[in-house]
């Protein structure tokens, strides 16, 4: 396998020497716009946590290129399997942010309709969702559909047994899955060096007999090309690909985390220079494609998204205690009906 990192746009916005052809400028503009929105969403969600409107928020600040590219390369009939950190990717895929944040607001475990959007619930138990992704992809093939599945996980999650089983199943079945590992260098506090001794996470592809690609995860252009290619291969029956995106988590793991305990400010500052937005902006401005006016439009769209998110989350959905019993089985068991009645009686007594 090729162990060089695929990069198209350098941190300063220049095109890398010998790089693959970048995507069309319209695509890059759309991607830049989506990153502006994603960044704003990360900030807004952080603010909602500080205001006590969200219980917690795992931010993807610094990883917006991955978030946007993962959604952008998919067709509508394709599937996205996100983790708790991939709120921005789910929103980029078109799901309403207030529905997405239902989970973190604490109203319900998943606030959107996974089948309507072809977006799985944001997975918490690490790497488990990768197997579901393989199942969805394999089922598509059995049914004669050419849908592709984009499955996300972090660097830490690659250590779990389920990561191994998912990659292996996908390769043996030839399932149409693109595994995108966002290597943001930490699993909460644990640095990559304690996670693996491999030369790269992409190198793990060798052990499964599938292509592995290491890509600059802060370079939207490169991500779009690499992931787009992997999606095409999967759609054409070429099986799965493992893509490692070299990126960085700029914020703490969540608001509850104290990143100062395990990493220095210098390191973070170094990665700020590789920011995915600044880089693409410099590139598009230099090409004359990103005008002041467009920038203002994107900023306005981002504010509108933030406002909609803030209002929706603040308004809240209202919860129904009895919903606890509603979905556990298609037809509630006698036991659950009894327990639900008990709770109802309690609530009525309280209310009276």
């Amino acid at each position, binding site marked *: 396998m090729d162990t060089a990192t695929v990069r198209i746009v350098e941190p300063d916005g220049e095109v890398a020497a010998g790089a693959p052809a970048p995507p069309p400028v319209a695509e890059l503009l759309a991607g830049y716009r989506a990153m502006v929105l994603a960044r704003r969403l990360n900030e807004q969600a952080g603010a909602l946590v500080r205001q006590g409107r969200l219980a917690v928020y795992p931010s993807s600040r610094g990883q917006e290129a991955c978030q946007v590219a993962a959604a952008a390369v998919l067709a509508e009939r394709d599937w996205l399997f996100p983790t708790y950190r991939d709120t921005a990717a789910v929103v980029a895929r078109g799901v309403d942010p207030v529905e997405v944040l239902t989970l973190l607001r604490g109203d319900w475990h998943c606030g959107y309709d*996974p089948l309507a959007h072809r977006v799985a619930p944001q997975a918490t138990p690490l790497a*488990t969702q*990768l197997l579901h992704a*393989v199942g969805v992809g394999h089922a598509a093939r059995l049914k004669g559909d050419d849908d592709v599945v984009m499955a996300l996980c972090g660097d830490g999650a690659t250590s779990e047994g*389920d990561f191994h*089983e998912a990659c292996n199943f996908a390769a043996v079945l030839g399932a149409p899955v693109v595994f995108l590992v966002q290597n943001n260098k930490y699993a909460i506090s644990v640095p990559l060096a304690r996670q693996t001794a491999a030369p790269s996470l992409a190198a793990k592809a060798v052990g499964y007999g599938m292509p592995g690609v290491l890509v600059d995860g802060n370079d939207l252009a490169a991500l779009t090309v690499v992931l787009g290619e992997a999606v095409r291969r999967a759609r054409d029956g070429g099986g799965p690909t493992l893509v490692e995106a070299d990126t960085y988590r700029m914020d703490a793991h969540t608001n509850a985390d104290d990143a100062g305990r395990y990493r220095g400010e210098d390191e973070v500052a170094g990665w700020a220079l590789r920011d995915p937005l600044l880089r693409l902006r410099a590139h598009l401005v230099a090409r004359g494609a990103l005008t002041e006016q467009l920038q203002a439009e994107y900023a306005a769209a981002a504010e509108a998204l933030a406002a909609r998110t803030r209002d929706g989350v603040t308004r809240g959905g209202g919860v129904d205690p009895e919903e606890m019993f509603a979905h*556990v*089985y298609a037809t509630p068991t*006698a036991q659950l009906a009894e327990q639900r009645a008990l709770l109802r009686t309690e609530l009525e007594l309280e209310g009276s």
Partner: protein
Amino acid sequence: MTGARKLTMAQAINTALRDALTADRSVVVFGEDVGPLGGVFRVTDGLTRDFGEQRCFDTPLAESGIVGLAVGMAMNGLRPVVEMQFDAFAYPAFEQVVSHVAKFANRTRGRVRLPLVIRIPYAGGIGGVEHHSDSSEAYYAHTPGLTVLAPATNADAYALLRAAIELPDPVVFLEPKKHYFLAEEVDVLAPAPPIGRAVVRRAGRDATLIAYGPSVPVALAAAERAATDGRDVGVVDLRSIVPFDDDTVCAEVRRTGRAVVVAEAPGFASVASEVVARVTERCFHHLEAPVRRVTGFDVPYPPPELEGYYLPGTDRILDVVDDLQWDAT
């Protein structure tokens, strides 16, 4: 018209799988060695040959992988029926079962139901070496969101598996492996019992034995022996552990006033504990004696040479029946 024939439980389940594969294009069967070999118990014998590799296939050797794959396939419109090779080899899939299979419908407000079946050959009595005889039903029964079935007859194995495959919810289907090669009459056209209904296998006036899966024939044998001692003991076969049929069980116990729960699994924090607890809560004033348990001991399943001492047998059951404070009446 009748579909009655003599079938072993392995054949009854094989027939159920065949009939389901025939009836519904979305049914798929997979697991370890279920393809050309037909499963280590031959339960999937001939399915790959007759329905093709796409409908019945071998996976790589990884149980979490198998269950996780089934979750995804069920999300995408199929009805997977997977086999765990033996009870203890389902443990690697525990996180997938507890955190996903059981919770997906609830998590998604019922939008993503997972119509999948996890077949588990379980329990002992076959002289298996370690890890081949666990009674693991308590782990599943304690996990909300799972339907947990444990047939005791070949007819029920057929009918309940058909119903399980049709259910919109995930089912853990526990197959008492010591029954696999015993033949019984099975009428595949007989009306199927609804999931969640216990059945009175033997009416009795004096006491009620409550059992499921491999313990049902043991309970019936004990009742038979009790009869020769002049005691009229009934047997209820739960069939479905979750949902639980309180009505059938409690009706019997209220009538007899005495009950013993029989199960192979270690008794502590078990399904048998649950039966004792809920029957006592519901039938307290009808009880002449405490509801008792005859279960496996609270030890790891013993090696083959000792399993006869471990398993609840008719002697042990009758001793406990004898102990149900008959003098007091």
